[in-house]
């Protein structure tokens, strides 16, 4: 019997009532009396020297409050980077200045050159047209390999080159890895591109800065996945506002996918300008601006080599990746191709020796940072493609080759610094095989061929590290922040609870799933629990929502705070029932004394805490409110096996996804319906990357895909009815809920399944294609078939 409440119940999402009836309160819905609007004049060239900016005509235009340029931000801090990577030689990465408004040079199309604050947006825009820019074009640096070649134009004149860092991992193992390759019975090599993506959340970014002079307080309303992080980065590093004078609010946020983690120039501008103009200042991104100012994702060019012995055991793995940073370092950019990517290269396999080399490169493009999965999809894609290619080269079944090399004993210490606590990769593969009728594939292929189509089946595994992350570990790895989470549980006098969590919810359904946990712990109705998040003024310090960390880290903090509450209520109950605290049991919303029929209701105990007439005041304080910070002991390691079947129309090259199956192990599941939705969304983005999405620049650094006319988003009819399963459960051993996280899995695990299937289909048609880069657009597939 499925449960209808508490942990494991598919409780309907309470937040959907407001989202689906247009009652959400998004940042753009926030309007402050007297607010002004800002229009950002953005560079339309990729690289140039700013000779002069004449704003005098603009400043005199109707409605204009003030025009800002880079000069107004001299003496103000730059946008900080939250992670420092140390290179192969022990040197810190090259870290360029990142001004709020361009100073001296423009470095990508879309960079802010000037900002006009006016009474209305159209007045601001009119005035921006009157700004006279004198900019000398410089050659644009677009291709990563050309960017690091001798004599390349530099994106940042004060850096030694366009190489941000040259990272080796694990550097000490390099010699042993090379030796294993020299002794290998077989080596499979693959070069591939992990295509650049634009996150495209449905709600574009918005920022409203406000300032109250009487108390010298600044408030920023922003579309953020982590308001506390923005408060810290912007307050401490950019504007020099102490945290007690700065409030950051992220109300309802319409999707983030990573792109709303980072601290952006527009946020700092609106906060700064509100104080400078003594007036609230609002910015709402247009979709066109989003394409050229939201951090992009992926954009890796990699070579991966797999060494095998004569029995097809993986003996070593070696990779070389060029990772695009864009023109500046966005908040977490350096960590994505390194610590979120190199540490995942073992995948589900017991490969004993691994060496990962990553060259991070500056180019005249929009900064690149984390996008759903962040580093882990890039690792999984390389690994699962090279394993598939190896199976083809060796003439062995790709599933059997994987199974032969699976890690089977846990905990497992990988050669890339992380230790998997639990997993059962055969179980998820068995589950997958039971879902996809592999035996029937030959008949399905024959049916497709009878229709003039090619059919392919692609299978792959994935492992991811999420529940980010142990602070002491990430500190050693270069993180400039801790990655704990916090929660305050406040019980009101009549027994209802409010949980103030640092985990922001922007589609994940926390407002529903977090109460399920509390309801289960106390034995009360979920409706007695309310979740508050997204406002630094009324939630404890939080590191935010990304890296599939909310339930594993934020949920654990909430559990710890609730445990403190329960411990205190047991003391009160013991006092009320004149029993020993050790004998008190809490079940179904009531406290009882073991072995007696004495009992007192949850609500009565809570009331006693606030009306402490009969209360152990000498032992405990009145009131019921507890805070806990939770710092995870390890990452969590969800894993799974995915399969995709495609059909290709050989006349046009069009690929259609015929079926897609996902068997995941997420550890314990709080709300199966929400988990299924998260997997569906992740799969849509992963299939979107494989089939459709690509952000392209021309050689001059002009964005070719600046709108939906050229950037192909996945639509419902591009996607099949997924089969998803999460019945394989190996609970996480180091967090109180045994949960692993599910937010990114679909996006991490699905691209290789699609490409493996496409290659399988093409080869079945006699085409000598052993790799095809994403997205597998019709023209690309047709060209591969006809070259």
């Amino acid at each position: 019997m499925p449960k209808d409440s508490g942990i494991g119940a598919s409780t309907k999402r309470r937040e959907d009532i407001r989202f689906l009836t247009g009652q959400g309160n998004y940042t753009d819905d926030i309007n402050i009396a007297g607010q002004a609007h800002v229009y950002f004049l953005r560079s339309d060239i990729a690289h140039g020297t700013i000779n002069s900016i004449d704003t005098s005509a603009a400043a005199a235009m109707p409605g204009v409050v003030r025009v800002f340029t880079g000069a107004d931000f001299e003496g103000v801090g730059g946008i900080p980077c939250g992670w420092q990577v140390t290179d192969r030689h022990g040197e810190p990465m090259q870290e360029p200045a990142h001004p709020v408004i361009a100073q001296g040079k423009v470095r990508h199309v879309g960079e802010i050159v000037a900002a006009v604050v006016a009474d209305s947006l159209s007045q601001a825009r009119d005035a921006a047209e009157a700004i006279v820019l004198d900019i000398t074009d410089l050659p644009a640096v677009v291709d990563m390999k050309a960017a690091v070649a001798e004599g390349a134009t530099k994106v940042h004149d004060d850096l030694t080159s366009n190489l941000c860092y040259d990272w080796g991992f694990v550097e000490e193992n390099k010699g042993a890895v090379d030796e294993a390759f020299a002794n290998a019975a077989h080596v499979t090599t693959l070069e591939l591109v992990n295509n650049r993506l634009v996150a495209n959340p449905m709600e574009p970014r918005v920022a409203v800065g406000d300032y109250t002079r009487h108390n010298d307080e600044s408030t920023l309303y922003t579309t953020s996945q982590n308001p506390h992080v923005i408060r810290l980065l912007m307050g401490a590093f950019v504007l020099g506002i102490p945290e007690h004078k700065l409030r950051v609010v992220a109300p309802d946020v319409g999707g983030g996918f990573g792109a709303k983690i980072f601290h952006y120039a527009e946020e700092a501008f609106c906060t700064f300008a509100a104080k400078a103009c003594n007036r609230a200042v609002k910015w709402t991104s247009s979709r066109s601006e989003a394409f050229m100012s939201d951090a992009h994702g992926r954009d890796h060019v990699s070579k991966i080599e797999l060494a095998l012995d004569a029995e097809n055991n993986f003996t070593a793995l070696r990779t070389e990746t060029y990772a695009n940073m864009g023109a500046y370092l966005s908040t977490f950019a350096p960590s994505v191709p390194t610590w979120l990517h190199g540490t995942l290269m073992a995948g589900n396999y017991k490969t004993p020796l691994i060496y990962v080399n990553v060259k991070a490169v500056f180019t005249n493009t929009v900064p690149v940072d984390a996008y759903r999965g962040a580093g882990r999809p890039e690792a999984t894609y390389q690994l699962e493609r090279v394993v598939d290619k190896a199976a083809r080269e060796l003439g062995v079944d790709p599933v059997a080759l994987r199974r032969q090399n699976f890690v089977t004993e846990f905990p497992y210490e990988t050669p890339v610094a992380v230790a998997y606590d639990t997993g059962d990769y055969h179980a998820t593969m068995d589950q997958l095989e039971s879902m996809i009728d592999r035996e029937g594939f030959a008949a399905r292929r024959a049916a497709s061929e009878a229709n003039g189509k090619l059919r392919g089946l692609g299978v792959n595994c994935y492992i991811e590290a999420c529940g980010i992350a142990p602070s002491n570990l990430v500190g050693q790895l270069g993180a400039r922040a801790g990655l704990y989470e916090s929660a305050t549980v406040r019980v009101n006098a009549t027994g209802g609870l409010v949980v103030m969590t640092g985990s922001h919810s922007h589609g994940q359904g926390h407002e529903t799933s977090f109460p399920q946990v509390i309801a289960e712990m106390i034995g009360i109705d979920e409706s007695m629990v309310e979740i508050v998040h997204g406002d630094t003024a009324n939630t404890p310090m939080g590191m935010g929502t990304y890296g599939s960390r909310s339930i594993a880290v934020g949920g654990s903090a909430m559990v710890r705070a609730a445990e403190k509450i329960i411990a205190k209520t047991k003391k009160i109950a013991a006092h009320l029932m004149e029993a020993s605290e050790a004998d008190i049991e809490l079940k179904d919303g009531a406290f009882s004394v073991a072995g007696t029929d004495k009992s007192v209701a949850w609500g009565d105990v809570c009331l006693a805490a606030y009306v402490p007439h009969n209360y152990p005041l000498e032992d405990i304080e009145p009131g019921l409110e507890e805070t806990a910070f939770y710092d995870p002991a390890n990452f969590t390691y969800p894993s799974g096996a995915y399969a995709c079947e495609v059909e290709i129309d050989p006349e046009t090259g069009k690929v259609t996804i015929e079926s897609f199956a996902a068997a995941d192990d997420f550890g314990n599941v709080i709300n199966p319906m929400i988990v299924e939705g998260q997997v569906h969304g992740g799969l849509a983005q992963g299939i979107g990357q494989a089939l459709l999405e690509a952000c392209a620049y021309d050689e001059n650094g002009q964005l070719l895909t600046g709108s939906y006319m050229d950037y192909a988003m996945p639509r419902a009819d591009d996607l099949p009815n997924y089969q998803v399963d999460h019945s394989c459960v190996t609970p996480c051993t180091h967090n109180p809920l045994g949960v692993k996280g599910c937010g990114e899995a679909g996006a991490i695990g699905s691209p290789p399944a699609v490409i493996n299937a496409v290659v399988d289909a093409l080869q079945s048609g006699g085409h000598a294609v052993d790799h095809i880069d994403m997205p597998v657009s019709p023209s690309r597939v047709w060209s591969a078939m006809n070259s």
Partner: protein
Amino acid sequence: MYNFEFVQPGSVADAASAMAGEDAQALGGGQTLLPTMKQRLASPATLVSLTGIADMKGVSAADGVLTIGGATTHATVASEAAGSFPGLAGLASHIGDPAVRNRGTIGGSLANNDPAACYPAAALGTGATIVTNTREIAADDYFQGMFSTALDEGEIITSVRLPIPQASNYQKFVQPASRFALVGVFVAKYADGVRVAVTGASEEGVHRWTAAEEALSANFSASAIEGLSVAADGMINDLHGTGAYRAHLVGVMTKRAVAAAS
């Protein structure tokens, strides 16, 4: 968007005189023009809305000719031409999404003459007559390359007359992002021959494929196209497909349109 005046005349005559004003521009469904204005790439002083003119709306079939008012939406064509001219109704029903089809008009589409638009293929593929407030223009003379037509400044498409074929079909291979035609082919079979019009493919915009017309006029079957090919020269070459790919698709889509013609 810049500020503009908005007028909504009730007759073609009133619309024509409004169009004589300085920087006046016709507004059909606004599906192309309004996004352009929002980008500040167009800045008409006056928008003359045509959708309030009853004479410019509706679909009627008489004497083997389908007449469509210039301000008729794609959705109306999709439903009202379904019986009399299924090839055209099918084309209209696959333009954009429901919102676009309920706003966008045939006159707007033909006036705009986007090289990837669908209606130009039907107009050229049927040898339609474009009727304006001042004259009638044969489709063969009307389309003059990408975004370029025979329309004069201020001229309004009031209706389009399309000879109803014995059999016809439009095959659109969509550009993955915009879902406009990467290549679209309209094939129409008449008693006196077959017409084939290609959209999406060429740098010259919509055009006829005369070699295919001749082959199909002799033998209206997909096999008649076998062996014919289109040169990749002059084909659009962009992110979504090379010239060679588009040239190849012209053959594939033509065959499919012939096979599906009804």
